[in-house]
């Protein structure tokens, strides 16, 4: 079996009396597409923040890209990418400036930024638009660009927080094509989504309810176990039982 990129062991985060994530344990392997599902307020965001080194856990253990989430958060940040629907790129910078900025943050040198930028723009059909302001790009292009920027420095893991919200169905699929390509290159994908058909595209899926991981398996097995026709039905079976909101 290939190397473990994310591992969590009874990872817990409490805010006062409130247990946001409750002893979650799982492992994600290199190159895997891991779907992280759960209703609003189930504790997904808290978990992702702990993995990204933004939040210290209350108890339990976790490593990301081989680094400890308690002591090596700076190392973790060097080795992950992050993209969310809400925050991705600077609207008032051009395509090229955004790429250069993010690549610069991760300490890439000028020459390799230049070379990679050309290839990236070609791949995204943006070769003629390096100097276009990001805000004048259509949403779908923005999201694809944001993803490409998030993995520009070849991180070991990329965290995607609802990356495809509001995107048209064709672009959504083009986006997933990019995800597949990144996974083939060995980048581990950790993704949350509200589209249940996208859950089917993941290698494995976990479903979080009220801070706990209640199910974790391949989509195929989950459907078999819960005798459901689609992931949508599986998800609803769990989420309907959820007690708490955000």
């Amino acid at each position, binding site marked *: 079996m290939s190397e473990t990129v994310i591992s969590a062991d009874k990872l817990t985060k409490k805010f006062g009396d409130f247990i946001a994530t409750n002893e979650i344990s799982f492992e994600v392997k290199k190159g895997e597409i891991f779907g992280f599902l*759960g*209703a*609003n*307020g189930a504790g997904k965001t808290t978990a992702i923040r702990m993995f990204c080194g933004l939040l210290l856990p209350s108890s339990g253990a976790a490593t990301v890209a081989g680094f400890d989430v308690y002591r090596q958060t700076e190392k973790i940040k060097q080795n992950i990418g992050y993209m969310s629907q809400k925050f991705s790129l600077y609207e008032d910078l051009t395509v090229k400036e955004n790429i250069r900025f993010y690549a610069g943050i991760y300490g890439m040198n000028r020459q390799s930024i230049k070379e990679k930028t050309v290839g990236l723009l070609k791949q995204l059909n943006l070769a003629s638009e390096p100097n276009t302001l990001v805000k*004048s790009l*259509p*949403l*779908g292009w923005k999201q694809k660009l944001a993803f490409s920027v998030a993995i520009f420095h070849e991180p070991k893991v990329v965290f995607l927080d*609802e990356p495809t*919200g*509001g*995107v*048209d*169905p*064709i*672009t959504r*699929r083009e986006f*997933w094509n990019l995800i*597949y390509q990144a996974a*083939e290159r060995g980048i581990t994908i950790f993704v949350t989504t*509200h*589209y*249940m*058909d996208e859950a*089917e*595209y993941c290698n494995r899926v976990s479903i979080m309810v009220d801070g706990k991981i209640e199910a974790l398996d391949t*989509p*195929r097995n989950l*459907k078999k176990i819960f005798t459901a026709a*689609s*992931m*949508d039905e599986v*998800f*609803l079976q769990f*989420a*309907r039982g*959820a007690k*708490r*909101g*955000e």
Partner: protein
Amino acid sequence: MNSVTIEHIVKKYGAKKEQVTALNDISFEVAKGELFGVIGPDGAGKTSLFRILTTLLLADSGTAMVDGFDVVKQYKNIRNRVGYMPGKFSLYQDLSVEENLRFFATIFNSSIKENYELIRDIYVQIEPFKDRRAGKLSGGMKQKLALCCALIHRPSVLFLDEPTTGVDAVSRKEFWEMLKALKLQGISILVSTPYMDEAGLCDRVALIQSGKIMSIDSPKNITQKFTKTMWAVSSAEMYRLLNDLQQYNNTEKCYAFGEFHHLVLKNDNEGKDEIMIYLLYLSHHEIELKTVQPNIEDCFIELMSKSNHQQ
């Protein structure tokens, strides 16, 4: 009389050189008591359309009537009788659930008491939290409160702009059940959404992309217009399967769709056997191959690629 009548609405933004057409010659009608869906991705023009209908925005050309009143000349009449829930739920985060509801009721010259019947089924779900500040509610509860606020003056037409965006699958389901119940009360509802799977819950839908309506009909009729055979294919290696099917010489279109890939062939005379041979030749295993009923998302993709070709 129609609840909403729109004729040749055009809306453009920006200075002359870099003008963006948000709405390009939109016309349709919504009958009284109808649950009408405007379905399309972000940036398709949904919000502009809703703002024009709620008298918040002036169209560049074309006319629109809501509940028998002109959206430009008789905007005051319209403001007295419509309910509107904008994109991001417009609530006062620092006011409690009850304070929000009372405020909006009073602003619309009504009171909670007067129309409690109408919102009761929805409000009872959030009533236990009526003293909680709106900012501390979950996404699903905010959505319910915003709906209550939009309904509290018993509007004749209800405009809901992306009410289910950013809300989880469970809350989405519940929300649509609420809309069905409201429809029975005789309120016309226009709802916009980027989620294609919600189309099936509407009486009629308009599929909108880049400011143009690509199709407008009942969900059933739209899917029936799809005349070609839709194949659903899966195998043990889904990503390789997708690439291989896209290379297949009889493939018109192939894309991922949940646990299957959807496949449309150029020549419908060929079928199961030919695809099977091709896939076995490429040593795929655990192949599953069947025909399926195309859904709204399939139709949307079909219409989108057609209009892209025309451009």
